[in-house]
């Protein structure tokens, strides 16, 4: 379905709706990050105003082009207005200032009334040309000519009125005269700030009749030079005289071509967006250092949060919403509308459609159109009765906390955090929790408690005599949990991390990233402590073979003891009655001595060998414990710091994406 289907022709394809949606997203991101170094509240307010204004303009007649004659007092705006209108509508005179109200003249009245109401032109100052009947004026059909009050007189109210209307109209014709064409009042206040609006600006040097042709050319050249110096190179300069009518045809021709093109309204908004978006650039900078955008995820990310609202609206009007989930909201809304009553598929067609498209439409049609405006027009009136749930809340509130729409697939925010600093942070957290120390002591604990079983009894006895505590007892007394991590280490680690990740980001972001990184720092102490405690094996663990070795050691000890006793008995019984050869045979004693020595040696060897085994086992266990603890700490780090930071970085990346698309607009699908 094309724009022709609803009778709108000759519309240039623009990406204004997409850019406005991006702008909405920029304000959403910005409004939660204000502050002394954050997004300027004025900028956000201006953006809100622009969004509301463009919504309002687009909902009104697209077949009209609002052209305003603006200029200083006495430049002949009213005379020019009257000359163009062909009747004396606006009073001209010698007393300054002359015009205190804005006057409007419309060629082709139908559909213009809401526009005039919106511009708040009083009813008695509205004039209409029955264009179709006027000879030679059909080309101007659709022109809404405004005569503004002057902006430089001492009458204060008119300046405010001019300022307001200058922001609303589609096209501006600045009427200057030879005496005041270089006035600061018009250049400083309007022409220079609106330099980006060159495409919808025209400059007329009126009252050419007061100059000789040479002087007029000189004057025009000087004005041209001035405008070029101000960056208004594309703005045409016309020399006219309302008195003699010179140059009026040319002016009429220019107006006619602007009216015929019917793109002044969108051009105006485009220029407005251009001017605003550039001011967002200071909040954007290089991408997050060391981070590569994941290709498939980027598409999902660019879906504005208002998708949720649009999906809801689509669901209300038709079942086709779910397959459209990956499309921008206005397209979804259109999709819904297509099923309903056939609103044009491309957004430009819909926004340019004259009133009846939705005023006479069914409920579905209303839902579709209003949902289309939803992203930048939260107060859209027609929606109220259809789906109040949508209109009562601004679109960004429909989004989930992390800025993504409820239905969109969630990308792990941790992927936004560059790996290098994340690794450093994990290491630093491990240090704060004392992982190295804890696992090293684990080694010691194992060795000592093993020594209670496998140790060489004589050595243990000697140790006890020297005052060392019993190994088993000491192991039992060990409470065995390093309850919490060191707070200052955690703080320093997070600070260093935030500096590394966020320092290269522009102003509000480096702060918000730091805040996000710190958001859960208070819990970190306990969580990291718990991670260590969970990862450690139980301290009092006793391996089975230790007991066997202990039995063997004691057995050997007992045998040695028995051998010694035997020797003593032999020596004692020597020379006594020979009751038994076993206790009287002196020659046996050396052999027994050798045996005892061998047993002791065996015990010592066993102890030493087992100690080595224990050390090996403990080393292995320690490695496992380090691994287990580090895994838990990495998880905790990710939970405590990387996720919040990643979310903020994701917002930053999203801001950059949206800024890019607000600047140029996403490519238009053909």
């Amino acid at each position, binding site marked *: 379905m094309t724009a022709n289907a609803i009778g709108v022709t000759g519309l240039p394809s623009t990406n204004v709706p997409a850019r406005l949606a991006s702008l909405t997203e920029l304000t959403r991101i910005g409004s939660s990050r204000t502050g002394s170094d954050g997004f300027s509240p004025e900028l956000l307010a201006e953006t809100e105003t622009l969004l509301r204004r463009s919504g309002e303009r687009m909902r009104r007649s697209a077949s009209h082009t609002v052209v305003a004659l603006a200029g200083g007092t006495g430049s002949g705006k009213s005379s020019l207005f009257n000359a163009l209108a062909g009747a004396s509508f606006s009073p001209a005179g010698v007393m300054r200032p002359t015009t205190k109200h804005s006057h409007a003249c419309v060629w082709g009245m139908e559909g213009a009334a809401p526009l005039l109401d919106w511009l708040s032109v009083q009813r008695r100052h509205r004039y209409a040309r029955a264009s179709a009947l006027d000879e030679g004026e059909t080309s101007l059909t659709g022109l809404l000519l405004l005569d503004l009050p002057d902006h430089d007189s001492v009458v204060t109210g008119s300046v405010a009125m001019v300022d307001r209307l200058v922001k609303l109209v589609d096209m501006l014709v600045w009427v200057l*005269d030879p005496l005041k064409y270089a006035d600061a009042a018009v250049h400083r206040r309007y022409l220079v700030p609106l330099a980006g609006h060159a495409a919808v600006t025209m400059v007329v040097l009126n009252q050419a009749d007061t100059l000789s042709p040479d002087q007029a050319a000189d004057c025009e050249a000087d004005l041209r030079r001035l405008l070029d110096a101000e960056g208004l190179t594309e703005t045409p300069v016309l020399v006219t005289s309302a008195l003699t009518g010179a140059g009026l045809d040319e002016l009429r021709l220019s107006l006619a071509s602007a009216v015929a093109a019917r793109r002044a309204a969108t051009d105006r908004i485009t220029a407005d967006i251009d001017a605003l978006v550039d001011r967002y650039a200071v909040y954007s900078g290089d991408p997050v250092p060391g981070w590569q955008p994941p290709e498939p995820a980027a598409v999902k990310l660019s879906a504005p949060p208002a998708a949720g609202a649009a999906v809801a609206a689509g669901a209300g009007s038709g079942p086709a919403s779910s397959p459209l989930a990956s499309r921008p909201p206005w397209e979804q809304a259109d999709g819904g509308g297509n099923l309903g009553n056939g609103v044009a598929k491309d957004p430009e067609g819909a926004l340019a459609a004259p009133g009846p498209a939705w005023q006479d439409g069914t409920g579905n049609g209303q839902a579709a159109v209003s949902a289309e405006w939803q992203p930048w027009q939260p107060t859209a009136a027609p929606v109220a009765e259809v789906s109040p749930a949508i209109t009562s809340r601004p679109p960004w509130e429909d989004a989930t906390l992390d800025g993504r729409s409820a239905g969109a697939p969630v990308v792990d925010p941790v992927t936004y955090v560059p790996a290098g600093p994340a690794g450093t942070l994990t290491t630093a957290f491990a240090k704060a929790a004392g992982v190295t120390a804890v696992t090293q002591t684990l080694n010691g604990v194992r060795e000592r408690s093993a020594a209670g079983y496998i140790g060489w009894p004589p050595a243990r006895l000697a140790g006890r005599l020297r005052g060392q505590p019993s190994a088993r007892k000491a192991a039992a007394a060990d409470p065995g949990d390093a309850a919490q991590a060191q707070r200052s280490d955690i703080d320093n680690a997070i600070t260093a991390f935030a500096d590394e990740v966020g320092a290269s980001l522009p102003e509000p972001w480096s702060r918000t990233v730091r805040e996000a990184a710190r958001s859960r720092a208070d819990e970190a102490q306990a969580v990291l402590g718990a991670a260590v405690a969970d990862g450690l094996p139980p301290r009092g663990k006793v391996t089975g073979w230790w007991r066997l070795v202990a039995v063997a050691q004691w057995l050997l000890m007992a045998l040695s003891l028995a051998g010694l006793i035997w020797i003593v008995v032999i020596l004692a019984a020597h020379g006594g009655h020979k009751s038994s050869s076993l206790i009287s045979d002196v020659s046996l004693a050396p052999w027994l001595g050798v045996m005892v020595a061998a047993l002791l040696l065996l015990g010592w060897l066993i102890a030493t060998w087992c100690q080595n085994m224990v050390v090996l086992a403990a080393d292995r266990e320690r490695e496992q414990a380090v691994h287990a603890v580090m895994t838990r700490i990495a998880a905790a780090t990710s939970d405590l710091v990387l996720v919040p930071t990643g979310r903020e970085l994701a917002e930053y990346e999203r801001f950059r994406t949206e800024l890019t698309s607000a600047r140029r607009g996403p490519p238009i699908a053909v």
Partner: protein
Amino acid sequence: MRVDARLLEAALLNLRKRIAAVPLVFEVTGSAEVKTERTKLLSQIDDYLLPRVRRSAAPVLVALVGSTGAGKSTLVNSIVGSHVSATGVRRPTTNSPVLACHPEDVDWFAENNFLPTLPRVRQEGLARPGRDGLLVLAASEGMPRGIALLDTPDIDSVVQAHHEFAYQFLDASDLWLFMTSASRYADGPVWEILQHARDRKASLGVVLSRVPQAYRTELVEHFTAMLDANGIGAEDRFVILETPLVDGMLPPDAYQPIRDWLADTAARADRRVAVLTQTMSGVLDTFKSRVPAMAAHVEAQVVLRGRLRRGAEVAYERAFAEASTGTKNGALLHGEVLARWQDCMVGGDLRPRRGARAATAGSKKGKRARRGPSRPAELNGALRSAIESFIVSIADRAAEHVDENWRGSPAGAVLLADAAAEQARGERAKQVFEAAFGPSGNGSTPGAAEANQATAFSRSAPDLQLRAARAIGAWQEHLARLVEVEYLRPATKRTGFSDEALSILVLVAMLGENAPAPQPEPADAEGAGIYTEPRRLLTSVFGAVTLAGILARARADLLDRVRLLLDEELVRFVKVIDEAGPCDDAAAVRLYQAEFSLEAVR
């Protein structure tokens, strides 16, 4: 009004000195306005008041100001009778001011006592497009004696410099001749300057030019009504009709009244004095409110400086308080310290040994000894690094608080930005220097450390870690000596603790002195609780009273060192304030006094 010129000059010079000395260091709301106000005050004193007081016989200077295209240059040319000022259709036409006067008077203006800051050139021949910002002196017989007419650039064109020029000339002249045209008498800038003249109470004449003959009455009536409504009581009002120019000049009947008026002002002594007095007392009257306003601003600056400084001090006070509680409540006895402590307790490394106490330190044989440092040494290292990172973290936080606090006010933000830029510049200069002459020997190390400080004020100085490590090391040595001395006292029980063990125990006991109620310890009598065990062991050695003394002295010494470190950090911010410029507390009072003495001599 008789005024002693010398006294007035002295008072003016005094006021000038005070105004020039006004410290405008910080960006407070309105400080930009005050800066321009100061320039204005100074230029009014230099350009107008002082020359006028010193040379009361100088010709009356008439400034011709007005809208672009009103025909100022044409009027000057007509009055003088020759083309001294360029005319044309291009706007703005006049780029450099032209001063027309009688050849006998030209020397008054050729000297530098009138508008001393403005370069001037004598005009020879006809008007040429002059260079911007150059005062052209045009001597012509056509001008009446005793009066000089200054054709100024416009007040309302796009060229901003022209407006400033116009206002500067107005401030320097004795009589204002304001000129506007029929098509723009209702413009904003016209009334801005007329109101300025009213507020200044300057002598003023008004010319309405290019009035179409047909609408003369209603236009003049309307303009007069507007003048009256705005309270502009200029009694001298002239009208020039829209007439064709003859050879670029107005017809004589159009400009003659103005010429006569000028000549009359110059010739009649009473009128001349009246004009001069009115304008000068008008200026002096404005001083009555402008100087006190500036003094009030200076006071605001002093207050702001105090607030910024206080902000920094409070942050570091808080950091110090945090340090003194943090080294007491056991907050540092976590993580690695706790693990190492438990290791030591299990290993019995910190317990008394039977045998010579000197022997135990090195007697630790076994696998641990072969693998690395002994357990007590590891505990010691853990304690040291815990205290270090604690200090760094509180200093970081304090710096961040100050940074945040300062950024909250525009003045603070500017200060920080300036300081950062300054440091970056210094670093660049140093790099250039080193590239040219090679690294400057031993001076390079502190220089590099300083350059690194350029990074940010929201962090503590980069070398703080190093300095903290040094301070803690020194403190531990001190602690060891303290313990040794105490241990050698006769009252102490010789229980076989090693020196190392004792000082570690004292350190742990100090850190955990005010710890919250310890967790339920194991019922075991030998419970290794980190909060209670060191105290128990130490009490057994020193006795409770001596121990309390040792702990108090150790802590006091540690806190002294921490205070020193934090003070060094604070100095960075104080330096930024001081480098912004001197901010004399008495400047405001001096201003009030100077203004008062000026009023007294008038």
